[in-house]
């Protein structure tokens, strides 16, 4: 079992609890021992990075420091935005001794541990789409998806800027497709799978965000997908919860169910409903459940 420090982020703690629950249930099946971090805060998303960037750096440094203090060399995230934020902060601290010194002095003075740069931040997606994690996933996904047609939606900040993320080709990513296939599903391709769902501006610029959001959902529908999967709970929230707004605005009722990555694998691995919590989704997962006769 690989021990990893587990940072769930805000949404998985609150409105997307189903993400946390399914991840925690799934983890041992794919060889991950999660050490949940409690002395942490919100990573700040793009918002604190934009409004108070020095604070953003410190909040993330603190998360990294507490992760390091668990003794793990890996900090696992389940959200694209957390991944980018933590990795960016990590690169800044690892690459500039003067900056690290200053931040550490501040951390220590408020009672947090110092950070020595020894943690690597990885999204759960990366841990299970390659290497040993992938092998374990294939074994674990014994129930399979019975050829269910799944449209992967990556979400911007797991791919770009590729200089900071670097896991795969940002224009031709394949990790979600690999997982879908390993789970016995059929991966659907469509152009908007790497485009933006609009979540960061869905409150401040709703019309603009909805014009972005409709693209992946409509394209996935037209390509014949049964459901979508995404590694980011923010994308999930807009794809799932805002479909009703799309219906209001355009009259189009897509009824496209959206799964968290951990739920998709969880289904294939035989997790039951108490661990998947499908009822929490706004667009019903019933058609998927029926197809799988779960």
């Amino acid at each position: 079992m690989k021990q990893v420090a587990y940072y769930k982020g805000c949404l998985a703690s609150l409105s997307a609890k189903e993400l946390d629950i399914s991840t925690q249930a799934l983890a041992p099946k794919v060889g991950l021992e999660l050490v949940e971090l409690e002395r942490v805060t919100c990573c700040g998303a793009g918002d604190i990075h934009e409004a108070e960037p020095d604070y953003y750096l410190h909040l993330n440094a603190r998360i990294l420091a507490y992760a390091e203090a668990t003794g793990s060399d890996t900090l696992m995230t389940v959200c694209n935005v957390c991944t980018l934020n933590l990795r960016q902060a990590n690169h800044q601290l690892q690459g500039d001794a003067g900056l690290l010194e200053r931040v550490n002095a501040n951390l220590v003075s408020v009672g947090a541990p110092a950070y020595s740069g020894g943690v690597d931040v990885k999204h759960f997606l990366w841990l299970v789409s390659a290497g040993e994690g992938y092998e374990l996933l294939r074994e674990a996904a014994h129930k399979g998806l019975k050829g269910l047609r799944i449209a992967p939606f990556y979400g911007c900040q797991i791919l770009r800027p590729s200089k900071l993320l670097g896991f795969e080709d940002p224009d031709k990513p394949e990790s979600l497709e690999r997982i879908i296939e390993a789970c016995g599903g059929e991966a659907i391709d469509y152009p908007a799978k790497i485009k933006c769902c609009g979540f960061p501006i869905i409150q401040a610029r709703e019309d603009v965000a909805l014009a972005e959001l409709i693209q992946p959902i409509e394209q996935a529908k037209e390509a014949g997908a049964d459901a979508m999967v995404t590694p980011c709970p923010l994308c999930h929230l807009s794809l799932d919860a805002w479909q009703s707004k799309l219906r209001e605005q355009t009259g189009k009722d897509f009824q496209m169910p959206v799964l968290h990555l951990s739920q998709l694998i969880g289904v294939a691995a035989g997790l039951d409903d108490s661990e998947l919590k499908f009822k929490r989704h706004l667009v019903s997962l019933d058609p998927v459940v029926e197809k799988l006769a779960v």
Partner: protein
Amino acid sequence: MQVALKIWRYDPIAGERALKEYEVSAPEEATLLDVLDIVKDQVDGSLAYRKSCRMMICGSCGMRMDGAAVLACKTRMYDVAQEGRVPVISAMGNLPVVKDLVVDMGPFWGKIRAVTPWLEPGYSDPGETEHVVSQERMDVIHKESLCIMCGCCVSECNSMEADPDFLGPAALAKGMRFVGDPRDQATVERLQSYSGEHGIWDCTRCYFCQERCPKGVDPRDAIAKLGAEAVSAGIDSDMGAKHAKWFVTSAKTTGWLRETELVPKTQGIAKSLKEVKFAMGLLRHGKVPPPFPPHVAKDVDEARALYDLVKEQGREGYEGIVQGEKALEQLELESESDGAGPRDPYGEGSFAVPYLPGENGDEEAE
């Protein structure tokens, strides 16, 4: 080597688009621009595209290869030819097409002009000689001043696709070039102007601009710097600014995001009340965490204290972003997967590397 391309042609007189395929023989070190030249010279003289310097400084040759904007003069064709791929070349996005690969840059320049893209020195008077400014202070706008106005960022901007009036990454990066310039005295007016409906807070943070920029300008970071300056200057009445500030408030009070209050804090009570039906839907599925009792992170007083400390130390506004740039510039591309790794759209060339006596071919480093 043999190189094949598919090019989206557009004939403005007939109003017709057509995908045409070409195959030519080109030297191994050829770039996409060289191949286009060979096609135009030897196959079809009517192919239209812009070019000038061929050394990635003039910004003329922006175009899309397989749907992603690149500089044609920087894009090597060696890998493409070796792998037998046939890329699709088309005009940049988000701008009207004039002919073939030529776009109308009028809207692009219109947005640049909208950000008052010249120094406003106000009443400052440096005297007869230069303003005295340290290199470190000028480095604040180092990346923004690299911009060659090629349009690759604008081509791929997801926000602009949904809102064509969005000022966009190039114009906002140009704006930051002045906001960060110590000799400019119009900072407040600029921030107010850039914080309008189609400004800073219209950016969807997709990072396509940052990914596509061939010069390392990092326009999204420039927009974030503007946001930081705007909030720091109290120019924060936009919903986007309020949204961002609530994250800060959340972090320094409860640690975790106070999701439920985010909506009224961003949009105001009146608008939030109109969303009641939507909110009910969310509530039924448990997506609206009750604001009481607040979900407080353990040892959150550390986060509170950090906020006070950070404020005291005063690295305000863009400084918080600029301070990390040195480390990020030196970042080596990491690859953690079994294969793909980060994208380099410009490819490897095929060059003979010269050796000096006593040195061998291992000299070349990546």
